[in-house]
């Protein structure tokens, strides 16, 4: 469907997936105005890249989700965005929003229920890598824990999540 580059397909895609993508983008960028721009940017990218989607490498929704997530992460890591958030930059130059770790910005009860069941150290590691796009090294610095611990916590966090979702 997507491969044909059909614009009708993009409408269907928008109707089906925009709430999920918008929610995740908003969770990452934190402002509705920016989230709207990022969502538009993400859909244009999906449209442009649709011919290169390879079903053998993964699920369609995961692919779309990652494009949206990466667009949002690129945005919070861009110079112009960082410039507007000067007060929150860290000593090591890695941008990190404390508020993201301790509070869940969305009002959705489902998220809260699920996320509350995760241990705080697992929740914060997911925040760092999934919502802030940190590499292991950056997450280790930001959370002030050893690299090996980051890896272990990611593994456990995703498994806990898997259990909670099923």
């Amino acid at each position, binding site marked *: 469907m997507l491969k044909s*580059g059909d614009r009708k397909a993009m409408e269907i895609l928008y109707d089906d997936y925009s709430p999920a993508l*918008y929610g995740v983008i908003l969770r990452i960028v934190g402002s509705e105005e920016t989230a709207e721009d990022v*969502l538009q940017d993400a*859909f*244009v990218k999906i449209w442009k890249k649709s011919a290169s989607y390879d079903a053998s490498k993964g699920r369609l929704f995961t692919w779309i989700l990652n494009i949206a997530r990466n667009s949002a992460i690129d945005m919070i890591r861009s110079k112009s965005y960082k410039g507007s958030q000067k007060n929150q930059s860290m000593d090591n130059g890695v941008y990190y929003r404390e508020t993201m770790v301790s509070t869940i910005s969305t009002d959705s009860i489902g998220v809260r229920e*699920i996320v509350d069941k995760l241990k705080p150290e697992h929740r914060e590691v997911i925040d760092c890598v999934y919502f802030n*796009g*940190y590499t*292991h090294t950056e997450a280790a610095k930001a959370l002030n824990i050893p690299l090996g611990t980051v890896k272990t916590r990611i593994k456990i966090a*995703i498994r806990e999540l898997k259990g909670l979702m099923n």
Partner: protein
Amino acid sequence: MNVREYIESGILEEYVVGSASEQERQEVECMLRVYPEINEELNKLSKTLEQFAMLHQQAPPAHLRDRVLAAIAATEADEAGRVVPMDTTTSGTPPQKNDYFKWVAAAAIALLLVTVALYQNVKTQLSDKSMQLSTVSGKSELTADQLKNIKTDYIQLANQVSIMSHCDMKVKMEAGSECKQSCCLMIYCDGKKQEMYVQVNKLKPAPEGDLYQLWAVVDDKPVDMGRVEIPNDSLALKPVKFVHHAQAFVLTLEENGYDTVIHEDEILAQVSMDHQGM
């Protein structure tokens, strides 16, 4: 390699959450093609993160739908507006666009038919190529060069497909991240024609002065099968020396040039034929 251990290592979790390094990502993508269990596990983890994302869903403002669709339409118009001049100097009559499309369509259909006839490994690899084809055919302009490349690719691919479909033995060799370096190689054997081919799916360029050498073990003795080079095209099949009754295949990184014996410390990957069925 132990698939269970690989899954337990946590690398798949890092892959889905996006924190894996570029090298780890490539490794996972190579592994999931080879091991269905890994593919299945990765699918489960992807679904988990999809569900996690769904929890965050929030309807975007209604006006955004038109804005996004307009932006997509604008991108499309922008691309259609770009015109690439055709090369008309080589022939007396200007080439007809329709002819090009006929060619591309014929190639695409032929490719599709071939794809269906193949077994899974080949199928996966072919999809990359056919994707390129459909990308190109989707654009309204095609240069003579592009067409030539498609033809060359297609002929090459058809040859590879023919070799793969005639082969009566297929062996994969690989080493995971716990080894010196990760690599992934396929050996194809056509017993009737007595031909063997190697396909390099994943291999780092050898350090300056070093080379990769492929060996077979026959009657407990090493048999040199030749040098392994990294091709430009990861699908390419390179002929290697045919070996009867191999007990094992070994890939070494030779630091002192071409060798006649296998040194334990130079082994990158090895596969014993006891585990491969044939």
